[in-house]
């Protein structure tokens, strides 16, 4: 009898935590939903700014992207497949920096693929620039 009485007393002094749990759960679910884990994959060209040319005495390798989607190096059309070979054969000592000059009308997908091929072939830096011609 006495034990029951004690139990009854302690139950009365307890704080009712159910609303607290409800609230915390709602906050938890809100933050779980709001946390958007953006996981992108892609390429980083990691080039230096075009102004700081002093530390790069080697001339860069130029590719031109024509408006009709051709990849041109030194006046000859090489296509996307020829980019990696050009970058590899450009210099035996050190990987070249690559500048891709895009003309109006060239597609960004092609420019990205040329950048990718150049980086794959070991180009140290790839830079996009607009062909002013």
């Amino acid at each position, binding site marked *: 009898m006495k034990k029951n009485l004690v139990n009854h007393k302690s139950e009365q002094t307890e704080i009712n935590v159910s609303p607290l749990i409800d609230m915390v759960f709602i906050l938890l679910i809100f933050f779980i939903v709001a946390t958007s884990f953006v996981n992108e994959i892609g*390429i980083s060209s990691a080039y230096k700014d075009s102004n700081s040319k002093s530390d790069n005495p080697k001339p860069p390798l130029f590719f031109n992207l024509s408006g009709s989607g051709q990849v041109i190096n030194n006046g000859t059309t090489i296509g996307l497949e020829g980019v990696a070979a050009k970058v590899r054969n450009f210099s035996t000592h050190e990987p070249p920096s690559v500048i891709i000059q895009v003309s109006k009308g060239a597609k960004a997908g092609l420019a990205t693929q040329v950048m990718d091929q150049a980086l794959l072939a070991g180009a140290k830096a790839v830079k996009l620039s607009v062909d002013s011609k």
Partner: protein
Amino acid sequence: MDEEDGAINVSPLIDVVFILLIFFIVSATFVNLPGIDVSRPKVQNASSLQKNSVLFALSDKSEIFHSGKIVKLSDVSPLINKAMKDKNKPVVIQVDKWADATVLTELVSEAKKVAHSVSLATLKNR
């Protein structure tokens, strides 16, 4: 006896939930998604980009999107500065493969003025 009362001891549950809550509050970085779907170019050596970045998208009609709105090229660097809040986040551009490459070039160079790293989001080539 506790079982006789039918009461479950909820204190450990609250502890765990609080820890989870604090984890999610701390790790919550409210990323502004650009708001459009682009068809990304396929490349061969794509790597995982840094999380918690400032996102831009370039649509196939060569419009620049940031957090659901079309923005002008001249607004890009102020927007990056605003989004960074002097934390120097990387910039990720989701580029559509049919976008104009000259616009992409201008966007990259504009972003490069204020951000230390500018990357292009792509598909992994399989």
